[in-house]
């Protein structure tokens, strides 16, 4: 065999090896993308399956009660299944929780990512994340035995004294009610806001911070004019996640909200939320309509979460100038 043909053979072998390798890696690519696609589909299927089961199980209520569910009175023994008071309780406690935990969580996150010395930031971050790991029933017990008495003896009398001209803070300080539920929820969702917002702030590029500082900004202006706007979408995401948790929380709320299907202007009054009525009454529900109605409340809660998400997304879109990092 001449040198030329030997070269040719080795060239061909090399080609074959190369194409073989390419084919193999191509195959691996396909498996990998197939796995990813499968995972994405599973999420879609789970969501749709959940929706289908909820609709099916609540069908008896949907057909027999129908729009009569959009009333206030909840009295299963009289066949009255109005859910508006639960929706009211869920909305009010979630708003209180977000109003308290939102600014607080963002402040904690700013402190951890921007101001705290490293030696302090590490342990404090860990404690914040630990807060998220406490089971909700433990929060509930703490709320009942510690928070509620404090609310009754200290916070609510003070609010009544100074802000009692507002209908929100009128009436006897009961300790148990919407305000206590909201405060407890705010403590529970604080780690969600703080931990996510901290990561979002930490991801703001150094160029953005230095760009603002180099224009003659103070550190505070750098935070409010460069870091916060850049991180805005992520922060809204953190708030939406936290709100979702507040709306869906059942056990802790059951223990401090008073479990009374009522709508009142005063935050001191007891109420009921959608998630807590599910948790509280499901085991004792008798009769097909009662059970189906509770499941319908679950379906409505699911729908409310979706609506909140959509509104938040729309909010992000509306504040981003066109062509920026839209999600």
């Amino acid at each position, binding site marked *: 065999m001449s040198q030329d043909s030997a070269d040719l053979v080795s060239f061909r072998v090399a080609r074959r090896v190369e194409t073989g390798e390419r084919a193999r890696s191509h195959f691996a690519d396909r498996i990998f993308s197939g796995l990813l696609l499968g995972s994405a589909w599973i999420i879609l299927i789970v969501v749709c399956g959940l929706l289908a089961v909820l609709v099916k199980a609540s069908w008896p209520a949907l057909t027999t009660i129908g729009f009569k569910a959009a009333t206030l009175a909840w009295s299963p023994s009289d066949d009255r299944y109005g859910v508006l008071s639960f929706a009211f309780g869920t909305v009010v406690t979630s708003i209180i929780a977000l109003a308290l935990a939102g600014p607080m969580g963002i402040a904690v996150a700013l402190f951890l990512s921007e101001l705290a010395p490293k030696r302090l930031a590490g342990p404090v971050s860990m404690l914040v994340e630990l807060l998220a790991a406490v089971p909700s029933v433990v929060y509930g017990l703490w709320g009942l035995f510690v928070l509620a008495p404090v609310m009754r003896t200290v916070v609510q009398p003070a609010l009544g004294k100074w802000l009692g001209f507002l209908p929100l803070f009128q009436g006897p300080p009961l300790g148990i009610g919407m305000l206590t539920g909201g405060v407890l929820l705010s403590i529970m969702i604080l780690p969600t806001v703080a931990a996510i917002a901290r990561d979002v702030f930490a991801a703001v590029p150094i160029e953005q911070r*230095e760009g603002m500082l180099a*224009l003659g900004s103070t550190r505070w202006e750098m935070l409010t*004019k460069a870091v916060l706007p850049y991180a805005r979408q992520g922060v809204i995401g953190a708030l939406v996640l936290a709100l979702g948790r507040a709306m869906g929380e059942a056990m802790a709320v059951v223990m401090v909200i008073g479990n009374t299907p009522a709508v009142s202007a005063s935050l001191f009054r007891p109420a009921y939320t959608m998630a807590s009525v599910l948790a509280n009454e499901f085991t004792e529900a008798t009769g097909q309509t009662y059970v189906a109605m509770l499941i319908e409340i679950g379906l409505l809660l699911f729908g409310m979460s979706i609506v909140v998400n959509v509104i938040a997304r729309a909010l992000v879109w509306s504040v981003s100038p066109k062509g920026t990092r839209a999600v």
Partner: protein
Amino acid sequence: MKQELRTDRLSAFYGAHCAIRDITMTFRPKSITALIGPSGCGKSTLLRCLNRMHEVIANTTVKGQVMLDGSNVYDSGIDTTSLRRRVGMVFQRPNPFPTMSISDNVLAGVRLAGDVSDRSTLAEIAERSLRRAALWDEVKDILNRPGTSLSGGQQQRLCIARALAIEPEVLLMDEPASSLDPISTMKIEDLMREIKTDFTIIIVTHNMQQAARVSDFTGFMLAGEAAPGELIEFDESSKIFTTPQDKRTEDYITGRFG
């Protein structure tokens, strides 16, 4: 002399590590001074010491003096915010603020200073700054678009406009064209020549041709294996690039290392 900027035995540290040592140099007003040297020689550190951006990084310290119009910028009575308004900065990578429109980006520093709030004056400042940065014709119809919608070269000129809008005395440029294509680079060099009649410009560059093309003066810096960066030679660019006095400068500009 008015608007004179000079350093006196300036040293800068990251923790215990000394990045530059005993740099003494005077920057001629209304001209372009280039700082060249191999990577890690401390030229960016020196630049960042001039507007006290060095201290933004944790655990950094500075020794020596930076004199601006006869007062040391490291004096305790000096406010960094007003200093940085007098000594502006353009960074290596374009960093427009993504949530702001083009005109808001240009006016970001003016709004920080807070002494102009009149709409038509702000619009005038924006136009003048964008014209100086040779960007006006390209963006005059899209001033409300986000700054990040522009191309890389346009974004960098936007950042230059932003720095010029607050009328600094000195403009520091840290490898402003290193992430840009040749045409964008040329535009930035052209505009540097245009604006040097109004501003003192100090540019850090890796690109010796760029230093030779645009600068009036050139400082060559060099750091040893473990030794901090020092100013080896500082002279008119025409001399540095034709008849360098120091052997190391000659080796560097003739491409023997770095």
